[in-house]
């Protein structure tokens, strides 16, 4: 019926490890793709998804060994080709959209050079006509001021714009196949929608085949015709999208879907294992945490933190060509966080949601004229060391990136207790004991205390981050996108854990996220922000289900839905 474009036959790729073991990134995988078809490859990190894309482009690491099978393009095997034989295929016949747009572009070359060199290599357009074509491509990708952007460097553009540049580079030679590796993971929902629409259009109008590598079932439901589900390098199942989504044969596919936070109804817990450790002895840590001193007489239901007229203006200093620029990141916002609740802040990147949190933590100084009241006292507290320590004991933070927020030279245990040791709250032996207790509480083995962060997975590291925040026995946690760098199943486990902890400890949380569904699952009330201003504030059940504000309505509309009937 349709022309078979690329097929992966029985492919096994192995990496010899340092200890003589062999790690197989892919095990006997077969995939077929026709022109005009959008094929999804789904799985968690470590499933071998990206390896398929790299194998098709000859970009595997030097030590990778193809044990069985091959990849063939248009009937010819391409897996044995040398680097120089692969070069004409790359970009020309197979375009590649890289996972992280911020690192995919060379930081020291202009956007224009990186786009033009690709055009000049693969098409007969040179010089001026190549430039005109580049501008046309960018305008096609809805990049404003395209001509001007060509002279910019990657760090001068936002993630969304960089992603469109990567897009333009991938499609400039009109390839037969595009491999898109997590093309939307780093993007806001509105941009994600635009990217997915473009991909869909490319497949339908230009008859280009697309392999979409993702961990997000929602994205799959949105645009894929056919899905392959991978786990640990092996094929779990495959079939037309509708069949996989509605009648998955394997438990794992079902689990993957259950782990996706739903926007339509709030669940008590996600249907995946994870949460507080059931095996370890968590009572010791809980006793320790519940033994915290009462900080004030604020009853449940009263505002623990109240924010009035909070603003933050960032100033870009003047330089030779332009005058100083002011940028209002947060513009006169007011809200309360009630004791014992979880308050969510949602918004796209650049909406100022993280800045709000950073001002509450005292990491940024707000503009004059604000009032922050916490535990009945005005922030920032008086300059005395003891009072500041008192505040940081009560107000702790969980950061976005579990990879960079832990000190790589300290063991997991030291990371957890370093700060309280530094404040002299606890001695060496007690700290060691506490680290172990807290690790059991957050669902890690006690023995991991001595491991270095690099030996732990992203989810495990974020658990360490949570344990670290808890070590102070706080009653308020500020969570800045705590799961956005993690796989869906890991995210579900962590969110379960945070819910368990909140229940057990009666924590108050301020939860920042760009993911509406996560906020829906985690929060009692939510504040929607746009360009530094509050758009809407209220109960999640209302704001994220039946919002009054058109902006929130728009956000909800562009969200990918994983439940099949709603998407189509």
């Amino acid at each position: 019926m349709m022309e078979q474009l690329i097929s992966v036959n029985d492919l096994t790729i192995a990496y010899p490890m340092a200890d003589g073991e062999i790690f197989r990134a892919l095990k006997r995988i077969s995939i077929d793709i026709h022109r005009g078809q959008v094929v999804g490859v789904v799985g968690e990190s470590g499933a071998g998804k990206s390896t398929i894309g790299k194998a098709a482009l000859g970009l595997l690491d030097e030590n990778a060994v193809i044990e069985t099978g091959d990849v063939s393009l248009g009937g010819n095997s391409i897996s044995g080709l040398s680097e120089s034989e692969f070069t004409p295929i790359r970009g020309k016949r197979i375009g590649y959209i890289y996972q992280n747009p911020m690192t995919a572009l060379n930081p020291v070359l202009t956007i224009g050079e990186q786009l033009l060199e690709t055009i000049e290599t693969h098409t007969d357009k040179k010089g001026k006509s190549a430039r005109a074509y580049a501008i046309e491509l960018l305008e096609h990708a809805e990049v404003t001021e395209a001509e001007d952007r060509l002279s910019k460097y990657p760090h001068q553009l936002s993630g969304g714009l960089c992603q469109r540049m990567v897009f333009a580079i991938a499609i400039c030679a009109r390839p037969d196949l595009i491999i898109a590796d997590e093309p939307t993971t780093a993007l806001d929902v509105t941009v994600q929608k635009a990217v997915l629409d473009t991909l869909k259009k490319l497949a339908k109008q230009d008859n280009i085949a697309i392999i979409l590598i993702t961990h997000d079932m929602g994205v799959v439901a949105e645009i894929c015709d056919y899905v392959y589900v991978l786990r640990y390098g092996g094929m779990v199942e495959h079939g037309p999208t509708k069949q996989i989504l509605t009648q998955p044969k394997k438990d794992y596919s079902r689990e993957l879907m259950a782990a996706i936070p739903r926007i339509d109804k709030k669940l008590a817990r996600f249907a995946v294992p994870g949460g507080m450790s059931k095996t370890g002895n968590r009572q010791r840590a809980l006793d320790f945490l519940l033994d915290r001193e009462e900080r004030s007489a604020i009853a449940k239901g009263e505002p623990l933190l109240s924010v009035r007229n909070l603003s933050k203006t960032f100033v870009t200093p003047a330089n030779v060509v332009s005058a100083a620029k002011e940028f209002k990141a947060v513009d006169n916002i007011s809200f309360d966080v009630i004791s014992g609740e979880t308050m969510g802040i949602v918004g796209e990147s650049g909406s100022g949601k993280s800045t709000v949190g950073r001002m509450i933590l005292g990491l940024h100084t707000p503009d004059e004229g604000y009032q922050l009241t916490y535990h009945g006292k005005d922030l920032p507290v008086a300059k005395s060391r003891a009072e500041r320590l008192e505040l940081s004991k009560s107000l702790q933070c969980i950061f976005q990136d579990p990879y960079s927020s832990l000190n790589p030279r300290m063991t997991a245990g030291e990371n957890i207790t370093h700060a309280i040791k530094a404040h002299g709250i606890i001695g060496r032996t007690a700290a060691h004991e506490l680290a172990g207790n807290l690790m059991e509480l957050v669902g890690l083995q006690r023995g991991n205390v001595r491991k270095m962060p690099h030996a732990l997975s992203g989810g495990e590291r974020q658990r360490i981050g949570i344990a670290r925040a808890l070590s102070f026995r706080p009653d308020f946690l500020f969570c800045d996108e705590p799961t956005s760098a993690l796989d869906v199943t890991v995210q579900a486990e962590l969110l379960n854990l945070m819910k368990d902890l909140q229940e057990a400890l009666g924590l108050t949380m301020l939860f920042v996220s760009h993911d509406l569904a996560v906020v829906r699952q985690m929060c009692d009330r939510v504040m929607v922000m746009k360009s530094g201003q509050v758009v809407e504030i209220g109960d999640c059940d209302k704001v994220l289900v039946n919002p009054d504000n058109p902006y929130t309505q728009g956000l909800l509309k562009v969200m990918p839905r994983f439940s099949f009937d709603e998407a189509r």
Partner: protein
Amino acid sequence: MLSFVLRRLGQSSVLVLIMSILVFVGMYVVSDPVAVLASDDFTEEDRIALASELGVDRPLIVQYFSFLSNVVRGDFGTSFVYNEPVLPLIVERLPATLEVAFLAIAIGLCIGVPLGIYSGLNRKKKTTKTISLLTTVGYSIPNFWQALLLILVFAVWLKVLPASGRGDTTTLFGIELSFFNLDGLRHMLLPAINLAIYKICMQTRLARSGTQEVMFQDYMTFARAKGIPRPRLIRRHLMRNILIPIVTITGLELGGLIAFSTVTETVFNWPGIGKLLLDSIHNADRPVVVAYLILIVMMFVVINFVVDVLYALLDPRIRYT
């Protein structure tokens, strides 16, 4: 940018001041110019006369401040030994040293960087292992001994290159240069090679580690995925990214070569400033040593400034405020 330049200038004047004090005190402690310059048959009166003629009979602090006030007026003093103003004495010998230093750096870059990139790209090849072995050897050979070997091989056995002296020079804008005539170039070659061997090894290692690091970056994988031809990939994408550490080290090394090529200049009897410094320390010729080191400090400041400007040109993410 302007405030950056001004701040840099302020910092370097303090540096120069501290340097001059250190050298002044150091030279005072180490040797006595009267003892070195006086002949055996000098009487005590002759010695006192000589000391007052040189101005070294005054307290050190007085000497220092009179030196400072002269420097402000552009006078670095008069050499005890040559009895000439110090500045022309140094400047006259500078071109010889500069020529050899630049040639050595150029050889180091032209051979070292390509070798390093090659080894970084082909980590498993035999040639890479050979290169790695050779750079280790090149690093470890003592400079003077290597100089003697070069003389032995090229001047004594093969008789293709002269062993010492500067040879013919061409005068250009009043400066004597060896660069523009064959005899001068031939004389320059052995000292330059002697200095360059260490630089080649260093640049090779720098370029190799840079290449290995950059090749694993996402943007290199993506550039390969775009189907960019290999030569362009290396020339634009790789080179631009590994140049920053190379530029840093090259700047420091150039300064080092100009200031402290003393051993090489001595072995090859090359009339540069390194040799002047050695002689002056030997003769307790304090004005020359002090002026020389102050000039060297200023030179390092200029070189580092140029390096910083090059950074900003090479990496658009760096901007000075």
